[in-house]
């Protein structure tokens, strides 16, 4: 009898061996889902970029290759066309595990929750922005299968051809813009770029479409024209109120800060390139963008640019200088703050693109007017850094009078202004320069450079792909060409129309 009781007792305990275990293993500190708006805020910040890739891909490589900056510091690999694989891959390293991963997750959530089409449209536009920055920098990349490690269990995504990525991105922009009208998209203030304003997103989508269209000018002129037409008809940015940018704050944490600003806080090595200073002569932007390293003078006469491609030994041989204190650096009272705005795309760029579309295809009206609007907007938008950076209309008029629209050299003139206006958004500077070739930059030829003294045409893939995604990487390299700085991406065909 007693035995039976004990056996029953044990049976009871036995059946309770995993009672409540399902609930125990649900993490009480981490939600299993969050509001998609919280993700939007984060993904916009991830896309704006953090110190890691802003330092390496944007500044160390792109800004120096584009001769906005120059430096004698050896690790600024872009200044000397040397190859630092880690730096070169930094944009992929940073984006894949933040912006790419979470934007794909947002897409799934919006689909699952049957969210309004406006919210989907906004997310799709942001998604295109993320991938266009990546593909412009690297060429063929995983696109259709990227960021889907959990969603579809894809651990080794295939690389898509850039041509296919472009086709899909343009379609995405077209459809998204069509889904937007006016009023709040549903994201409201969580959308820290446009506070949910559908109209601004729509104009951003069309401006992006115009950007992508012009990218194809060498490889597919007809397609470029077709998409430019669609973009212009859809309506691009119309004033500096439409600028796509993130307002950063100086803290409390790294994510809140402007990634470039964080670099300037710790890295004193970049100087203004003498190429850039050369183009900024009699430009009212010069004392706003630059000051002299040694004494912070903003007198244009004191602002001397440093030639690219020199190390300290070479500088000493050339000038006898022991250091670079006499050269101009970014003006640390205005543009280098951790609370500075980070521009994704500006109204000035839109105007310059319209001007070019006018020149090339007679689209969008008078190119001269667009050129003037562009220059004016590019100067005015510096107010977004600080009201102290305001440039008077009179100064702008003076500048335009001295640099009037020149229809004979319109493409070069427009794109040189584009090159100035995208200062600090060096990803865009680099991409636009590669497609159009202006301004004409003289390459350097530092001893030991890996490009045979030519300006690089792309950055390279992470070496981790060799072990973690070998087959797909090999297929991409077979299709695109060697994984080198000199390999051209699909739209960057040599000798295409300019």
């Amino acid at each position, binding site marked *: 009898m007693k035995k039976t009781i004990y056996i029953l007792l044990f049976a009871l305990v036995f059946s309770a061996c995993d009672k409540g275990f399902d609930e*125990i293993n649900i993490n009480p500190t981490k939600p299993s889902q969050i509001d998609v708006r*919280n993700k939007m805020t984060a993904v916009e910040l991830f896309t704006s970029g953090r110190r890691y890739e802003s330092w390496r891909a944007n500044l160390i490589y792109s800004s120096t290759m584009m001769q906005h900056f120059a430096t004698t510091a050896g690790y600024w690999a872009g200044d000397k066309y040397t190859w630092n694989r880690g730096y070169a891959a930094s944009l992929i390293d940073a984006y*894949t595990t*933040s912006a790419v991963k979470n934007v794909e997750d947002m897409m799934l959530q919006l689909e699952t929750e049957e969210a309004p089409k406006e919210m989907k449209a906004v997310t799709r536009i942001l998604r295109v922005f993320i991938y266009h920055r990546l593909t412009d920098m690297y060429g063929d990349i995983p696109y259709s*299968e990227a960021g889907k490690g*959990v969603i579809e269990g894809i651990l080794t995504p295939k690389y898509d051809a850039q041509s296919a990525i472009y086709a899909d991105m343009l379609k995405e922009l077209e459809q998204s813009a069509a889904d937007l009208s006016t009023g709040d998209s549903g994201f409201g203030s969580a959308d820290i770029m446009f506070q949910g304003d559908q109209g601004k997103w729509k104009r951003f989508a069309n401006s992006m479409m115009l950007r992508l269209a012009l990218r194809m000018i060498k490889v597919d002129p007809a397609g470029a024209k077709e998409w430019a037409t669609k973009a212009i008809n859809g309506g691009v940015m119309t004033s500096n109120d439409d600028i796509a940018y993130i307002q950063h704050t100086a803290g409390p*944490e790294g994510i809140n800060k402007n990634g470039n600003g964080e670099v300037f806080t710790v890295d004193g090595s970049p100087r203004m390139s003498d190429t850039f200073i050369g183009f900024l002569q009699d430009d009212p932007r010069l004392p706003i963008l630059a000051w002299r390293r040694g004494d912070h003078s903003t007198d244009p006469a004191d602002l001397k640019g440093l030639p690219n491609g020199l190390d300290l030994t070479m500088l000493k041989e050339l000038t006898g200088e022991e250091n670079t204190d006499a050269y101009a650096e970014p003006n640390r009272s205005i543009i280098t703050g951790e609370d500075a705005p980070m521009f994704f795309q500006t109204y000035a760029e839109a105007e310059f693109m319209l001007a070019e579309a006018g020149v090339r295809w007679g689209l969008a009206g008078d190119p001269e007017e667009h050129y003037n609007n562009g220059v004016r907007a590019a100067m005015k938008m510096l107010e977004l850094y600080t009201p102290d950076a305001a440039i008077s209309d009179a100064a702008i008029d003076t500048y335009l009078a001295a640099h009037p629209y020149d229809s004979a050299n319109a493409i070069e003139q427009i794109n040189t202004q584009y090159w100035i206006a995208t200062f600090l958004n060096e990803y865009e500077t680099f991409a636009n320069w590669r497609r159009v070739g202006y301004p004409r930059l003289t390459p350097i030829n530092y001893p030991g450079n890996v490009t045979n003294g030519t300006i690089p045409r792309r950055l390279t893939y992470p070496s981790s792909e060799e072990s973690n995604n070998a087959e797909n990487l090999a297929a991409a390299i077979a299709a695109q060409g060697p994984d080198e700085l000199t390999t051209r991406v699909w739209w960057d065909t040599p000798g295409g129309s300019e």
Partner: protein
Amino acid sequence: MTQKVLRLLFLIGIFSIQSFYAQTTVTGKITDALDGEPLPGVNVIVKGTSHGVSSDFDGNYSISLEDSNVVLVFSFIGYSDKEVSVNGQSLINVKMEQSTEALDEVVVTALGIKKETKALGYSLTELKGDEMAKIPETNAINALQGKVAGVNITQNATGAAGSSRVVIRGASSLTGNNQPLYVVDGIPISNENNGSAGMWGGSDGGDGISSINSQDIASISVLKGGAASALYGSRASNGVIIVTTKTGKGQEGFGVEYNTSYTFDKVDTSLQDFQTSYGQGRRGAKPSSQEEAFDMGLSSWGPKLDGSGVVQWDGEIRPYSYVGSNVNRFYRTGSTFINTLALSNSKENLTYRFSATDLDNEDVMPNSGVNRKTFNVSVNSKMAEKLTSTVNAQYIIEKANNRPRLSDAPGNANYTVAMLSPNVDVRTMKPGTNSDGSERRYSSNVYSQNPYFAAYNFRNEDTKNRIIANTTLKYDITDWLYIMGRAGIDHYTIKKTSVEPWGTAYKPLGSIRETEIRYSQVDMDAMLGYNDQFVDDKFGISAFVGVNSNSIESESLHLNGSNFIVPGLEDIANTENQSRSRGYSMRKIGSVYGSAEFSWDNFAYLTITGRNDWFSTLSYPGKTTPNDDFYPSVNGSLVLSELFDMGNAVNFLKLRGGWSEVAGGADAAYQLALTYQIFGQGHLGQPTGDITNGSVPNANLIPYSKTETEIGIDGRLFSNRLNFDVAYYTNRTDNDIVPVSASEWSGYGSALANIGVVENKGVEVLLSGKPILTDNFYWNTSFNYAYNDGKVVSTNETGSDIGLGSARSRNVEIKQIVGEDFGSIVGVSYVRDDAGSIVYDIDGDGVPLAQRGPRKILGVGVAPTQWGWANTFSFKNFNLYMLIDGKMGGQIFSGTNTNLYGNGLHKETLNGREGGLEVTGIDAATGSSFTTVVAPENLSTYYGRISSIAEEFVSDADYIKFRQLSIGYSLPGSLLDNIFLEKVDLSFIATNLFYIQRSVDNIDPESAYNVGNAQGLEYFGVPATKSYGFSLNVKF
């Protein structure tokens, strides 16, 4: 004190008065002649009759006699019968000798079950408490080093309060925890690391087992293999170490015991042999100004020391001559002072023991040390005829101050002190602060700290309050059936503060981190046991079934602040940027287990066990794959010496064998599903959220399984004068949890999967004997040897390497490579031509620079072979104990030697200082051989390149060490007869006396900076110490 003594005498008085009243009854206590432990269940029979009783669980017996002129026969299994004539005595205490015929020793096995060793089908080593406490250690588990075959203990260079790595029979998991489960009085306890150093520095926060006080340990059972530990199921893969704490048993009445030990710890400077003849400088030149001296920092590429006046980092001009050992000047003589007072009492139906211990350690690192107070209570009582209860509780308060920083240079005083030039006296850097409280910098390198600033101004302190308690209730339903319940808890809180002060060179505004950790493990068992004998008592069954519930809850709170606003005020509120975070985890295992032992006529034994574990960590709503697993084992033994008559030479001979399947891993909560977080503090008032997981969660993860087969033989020969025990085992871990590589484009770094495979096989040998055994003198000797061959069979789906960790020099790392030994050291090698000659680049100055080649396997971080040899000599009241141990076959990368080359402090770098260094090799440019002379001023370039080649700095880590020595004297009983003292032992003790043999230069061969899986990397840990002192044990 006097009061205590009076009380003691009073009690003794009462005891002796009591005995006068037992005229018709004989009483007494039966104890083991060897260790004085009481023997319960001893049969006491009047010779020639069937009249008898048996002793109770305290060894006491009471027998009523009609005739006081009879002979009592005392008999007990495993002991020789003893006959005593009563002759009118009323009190007869009996000491029983263990039988030399058979080994009937009883040991503690899994779940606290006591078993005779002859019934064991597996290897189990039990150490008694006095062996553990003979030479007290700050971390009691270190006392096992060199004593147990197959248990690999590495103390490493983590400071006196640091962790130890304990691995039994080789590591079973490629990346998981490989340390054993610790069970104290039946309750599993936490052995979690409270922080450890890595490639980028950090400090060792100590481990869980170090809380256990060696003076409170009655015995330690090491369950090495799966067959021994199978009843712990999913937590048994790394073996189990069972600690049983002392009780009041064995005490006659009230007793007081006092132990004290005091040891001095000194840095063993004999290990270091640096060059002392060339001073601070660069390219053969002395510093010519303060700025230059400041800029040169730790560079010892100056000219030969000549005694001239040369400016130093602080602008002072001092003689350019060797100043002596900075190590001796900076590190202090440490000390460890341990005091234990234990009170115990044993009454009818009740025994108890209370102890209090204070351990106070001052580490050799200035301002660093640990204080641990332990209070221990144990109560055993017989509450009713069939009901016994046990309560054990320990309360531990541990305070550690300034746990030293290790590895990378920032904040690491060890780095600076080791690297100072021979002409720079470390004491010139004292104090470490300027008048404003900022760091008094000695060098332009902000990442190399003034050592006094690092020691006195960096803060790294913690307080741990811990309680480990359990209670057991056992009820004997019948004489063949019992039920037992046991519940226990291990609970602690840790409060940590670490501060990089305002004014730190590399972090001028400083930072602070406050952490609070709360941990609770609750474990409950219920068991139903059955023992019976059949067939003329020849066939025995001993079986039990049980259920267990184990839950572990932990929580951590972190406050981080950076940029102090008011200098010197180190408070979280006084910072510009603040952030906070909280971690939480809860996991449970529910289990059912059972064991059945069948025995036949004392010579054949077979035990079958099984356990089924259910895991909360494998449960999730909607999950369809199982959340449980079953772990069986079988083992048996055959006592050949009982079966055959083997003559007088063989007293005991047993063959044994076992097979088991156990498991490990999958013990982290919340790994099955994707989670999100709201992170940071939002942006412009908007919360920010994203995916938490860095690796793809795997809903189908299971614990890895480990199967092991072992066989063994043990025997006792020549009247127990020679004993041996040999074990051979082979085990294999399948389904090890490894990170499967994922393209970063997937959004994740990796995915966890059950696909790793590890194999170990090895031999363990124990030989012990008593070569000399006379009345006045005996010599006990014991030698143990273990060899383990651990192989990585499979890593992940592509067979790619798994990295475990790199050294700060970044030219060497520890990796798991398919087909290689567990934990290969892989590093940058020389480029050599086909003939093996080193290939050089020749630079513009004509300096040959050895070419850095690909990474190669340069060694293995864990020594496969280890042995220990202990000897005890006893002459009258004196005894001498010594332990020598060794490890062989492993290698270590020396970060110290790497930096000694780079800075020109290594003796090798003396070659060529005068007249240049002739180098012969292959010129990479031409492919032909060259010979050139490197000018003295270019040596730093030449040796600097060598310092980047890891191959040069991976050496054998073999050693033979004189580990322990104790010389003791026991006051003779004749001296104690007239005073209140029962026993007085005084010993001189010493540990880590010296290396008898050592392969690597300048460092301790066991000086990795953490106790994780990446063993074999040395990088500026706390230098090795040697200790001398005394201990005193007094019993009242």
